[in-house]
């Protein structure tokens, strides 16, 4: 929905669009892959919805569709349209238009951009008018005409965000302005400038989400939450559950930055944020904080994660708690920063020098980011170990309606800080259940000690080159991570019954896979869904669980990294379904793979019996 006052020529534009496509000649309306893609997650409704908006704009709110988008050229346009917006909708505002005077004219006595009105929308303030004028300057239009190009600038931006090709829009412009080369050139320039802005400023793509099926909402209080918000809230919640203060140290990188930005706004909740000079300094500062008795948390993506691997080794060697959040993005190297991928699982599990194991978790949805963050902190503090939490660019920006949790429902988080009763010394006295050491920090006269990255004696912590001790420490490090599994819940089936095909996935593919499996089950196929939160160590019962199936399908947005892990750990054959295009799976893709492997439920039972 483009909204502004008529002066902006919105109606005119609307008519133009309508006319153009009414001819039936509009490429937009006839993009060949349109019908097929109609349920696609990659926000491909944009083209369509954009036009629905133009054709009087009926809103689309059913789950599984592109979130509503509002482009507000002035305050009035914003407030008038606000009520119609789906929670979590994306709002692009022409920032400078929000002047005192314009606010008054809209009968507003405070600026909605800053007074919190837009708290649960994603707002992108941009100087559209100015940027458009700059873009069309070369074509020497009058101010009025230049300003009219705003709409195509905005369209360009949206095409970027919804990840759509520009050609259709370009042809539309060419048809429309065939007679006026200046206007044509100007509008093309505006379209491209808007698109370029999205790319240059690394604005994330808006991805349609497949939340858990839209069962009638259970009775509860709901709010919207994005993955980044979920993580931020989960981290501070965990701090409260553990009664530990947090220091979040990070260096900006797309798409991880949004977590930094959210936490910077939550500093009253027992967390402080530090923007370091690079990712190495960020994880080092976080580790320093953990050494000093506050929980250090760091966060990054892609190349930034690679830089943190050396310091992770120090965290493992010194047995300090640390939470490392990885918002995965498309690679290798800089790759496609704004595109999503699940390709850092290998790195999380295996990507350090020497035998340096650590626990790895992954979140499945924006709301689940909250719980997974709490789990990550719980494991880090209970086992005195660094923990990697995997999310991705898609989750970070996706938003969903979320039943507001009651913190009281979460078990408090235990940690190993010495109490007044703890006898002095014995920093390396170990908890029998977890083999975790004491979390003794400077300031406490009872535990003055030295520690570092050189191999240390298992009991005294002093430097030791003793072969037997190194073996013992290596075994200890393995065992500490292995013992995390003793505390994990049994792996459950998300849906479906044993026997037949198990679809095993992790991370942000949850919604898509869930929908595909549901449809398959409805179609009578013997399929069940297993979704993993804990990737290292794997839940103890996973092997036994999978043994009840004839086949295992592993859909991943990588070249088969979980598949590798399952083959190695469980020594079972698995069928990988891989997609590495920077796009999430479509339900259709997963459904097709399921059809190829699953059999009707009846035979399946027998099949299950054969084993």
């Amino acid at each position, binding site marked *: 929905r483009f909204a502004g006052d008529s002066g902006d020529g919105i109606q005119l534009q609307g008519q133009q669009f309508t006319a153009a496509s009414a001819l039936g000649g509009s490429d937009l309306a006839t993009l060949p892959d349109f019908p097929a893609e109609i349920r696609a997650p990659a926000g491909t409704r944009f083209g369509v919805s954009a036009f629905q908006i133009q054709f009087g704009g009926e809103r689309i709110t059913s789950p599984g569709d592109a979130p509503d988008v509002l482009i507000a050229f002035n305050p009035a346009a914003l407030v008038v349209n606000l009520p119609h917006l789906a*929670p979590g909708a994306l709002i692009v505002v022409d920032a400078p238009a929000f002047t005192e005077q314009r606010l008054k004219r809209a009968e507003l006595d405070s600026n909605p951009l800053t007074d*919190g009105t837009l*708290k649960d929308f994603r707002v992108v303030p941009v100087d559209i008018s100015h940027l458009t004028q700059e873009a069309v300057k070369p074509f020497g239009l009058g101010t009025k005409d230049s300003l009219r190009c705003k709409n195509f600038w905005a369209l360009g931006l949206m095409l970027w965000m919804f990840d759509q090709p520009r050609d259709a829009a370009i042809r539309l412009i060419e048809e429309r302005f065939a007679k006026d080369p200046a206007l044509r050139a100007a509008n093309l320039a505006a379209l491209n400038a808007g698109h370029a802005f999205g790319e240059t400023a690394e604005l994330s793509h808006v991805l349609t989400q497949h939340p858990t099926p839209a069962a009638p*909402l*259970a*009775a*509860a*209080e*709901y*709010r919207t939450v994005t993955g980044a918000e979920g993580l931020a*809230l989960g981290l*501070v*919640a965990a*701090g*409260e559950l553990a009664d530990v*203060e*947090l*220091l979040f*140290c990070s260096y900006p990188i797309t798409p991880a930055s949004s977590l930094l930005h959210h936490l910077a706004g*939550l*500093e*009253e*909740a*027992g967390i*402080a944020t*530090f923007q*370091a*000079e*690079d990712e*190495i*300094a960020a994880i*080092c*500062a*976080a*580790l*320093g*904080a953990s050494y*000093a*008795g*506050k929980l*250090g948390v760091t966060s990054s993506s892609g190349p930034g994660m690679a830089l943190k691997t050396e*310091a992770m*080794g*120090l965290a493992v060697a010194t047995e300090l708690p640390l939470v490392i959040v990885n918002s995965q993005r498309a690679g290798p190297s800089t790759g496609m920063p704004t595109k999503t991928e699940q390709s850092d699982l290998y790195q999380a599990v295996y990507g350090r020098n020497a035998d340096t194991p650590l626990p790895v978790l992954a979140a499945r949805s924006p709301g689940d980011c909250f719980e997974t963050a709490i789990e990550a902190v719980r494991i880090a503090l209970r086992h005195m170990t660094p923990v990697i939490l995997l999310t991705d660019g898609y989750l970070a920006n996706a938003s969903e309606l979320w039943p*507001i*949790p009651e*913190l009281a429902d979460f078990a408090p988080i235990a940690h190993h800080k010495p109490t007044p009763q703890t006898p002095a010394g014995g920093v390396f006295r170990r908890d029998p259940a977890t083999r975790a050491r004491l979390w003794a*920090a*400077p*300031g*406490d*006269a009872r535990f*003055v*000690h*030295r*520690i*570092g*990255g*050189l191999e240390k004696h298992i009991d005294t912590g*002093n430097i030791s080159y003793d072969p037997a001790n190194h073996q013992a420490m290596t075994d200890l490090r393995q065992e500490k991570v292995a013992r995390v599994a003793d505390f994990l819940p049994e792996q459950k089936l998300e849906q479906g019954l044993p026997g037949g095909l198990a679809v095993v996935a992790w991370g942000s593919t949850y919604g898509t896979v869930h929908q595909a499996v549901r449809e398959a089950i409805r179609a009578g196929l013997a399929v069940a869904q297993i979704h993993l939160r804990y990737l290292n160590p794997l839940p103890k019962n996973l092997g036994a669980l999978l043994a009840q199936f004839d086949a295992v399908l592993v859909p991943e947005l990588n070249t088969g990294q979980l598949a590798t892990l399952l083959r190695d750990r469980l020594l079972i054959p698995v069928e990988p379904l891989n997609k590495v295009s920077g796009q999430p799976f479509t339900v259709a893709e997963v459904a097709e793979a399921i059809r190829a492997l699953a059999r009707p439920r009846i035979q399946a039972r027998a099949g299950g019996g054969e084993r």
Partner: protein
Amino acid sequence: MSERAFKDYATDQEVRWCPGCGDYSILKAVHRALAEVQADPAKTVFVSGIGCSSRLPYYVETYGFHTIHGRAPAIATGVKLANPELDVWVITGDGDGLSIGGNHLLHALRRNVNLNILLFNNEIYGLTKGQYSPTSRVGTASPSSPGGSLDRPVSPGRFALGAGATFIARAIDIDQKGLPGLLAEARAHEGAAFVEILQNCIVYNADVFEDVANKKTAAERQLHVRHGQPLVYGAQREKGLRLDPRTLTLEAVTVGENGVGEADLLVHDETNPLIAQLLLGLEAPLPTAFGVIHRRRAPTFDSAFAERKPTRRRVRVQQLLRRGTVLDRR
């Protein structure tokens, strides 16, 4: 609490440096400085990187963190932000601090984090068997530069000045008289205190500082600066440095000779970066400057951080969860 002797700051660990290494005297000076200020071992932390120099924390009876190569300033920053109460020392070397760690040192200095940073400059990589370092002089022969090194060295002090350091001092390992006091001054400074300590690696770079260190000629080759005092040196303290206002350079003069009086000598002003630049730029035959070369007051990062970003919990998370529009479906 009873008075702590400097021996009380030594640990039970066997000291693992080569006999005759300058690190021993620096260690002793550190023990002395801690005793002088009666540092509380529980509230004192020594953070180091990797190198012979970085082994020091194992030998100091306080909290100690021997981290990874070049990262000590970053880790120390985290320690200080997490607990501003702590007195945090950073121990590093010319390789650890200026080769791999240059960036973290730069940012700790420009942020003015309240750390006491001691850089042991032996102009060599000692621990890894003597390769040339970023402070090695051109032509240094080493296992990795058998034909002599080609790199132009960096001056630790001028680097610190360029980074905006608020405290810059220089000392030499053998100066047991002056070093403990200087370390105490560095500790007293509010902000990042950077101390370059010339240190003799007798195995891989023996006597590289002989020219200034040699007891016989020390008086002629060492210029000990004091705020508000003229720049004098020499056995009879008869020599001094005078500023040529046209060339903006320092020249050596002898007080009493051809009409030069003490009044003509440049008076040291710790707070003036130009004077710091002049002193750090001194080259033979002019003497080398020692002591507090630059010191000025500036807000520290950690205090601003503690004030603006206390990690203390001020709202309950449950409130945050319910912020913004809530959709009630009960």
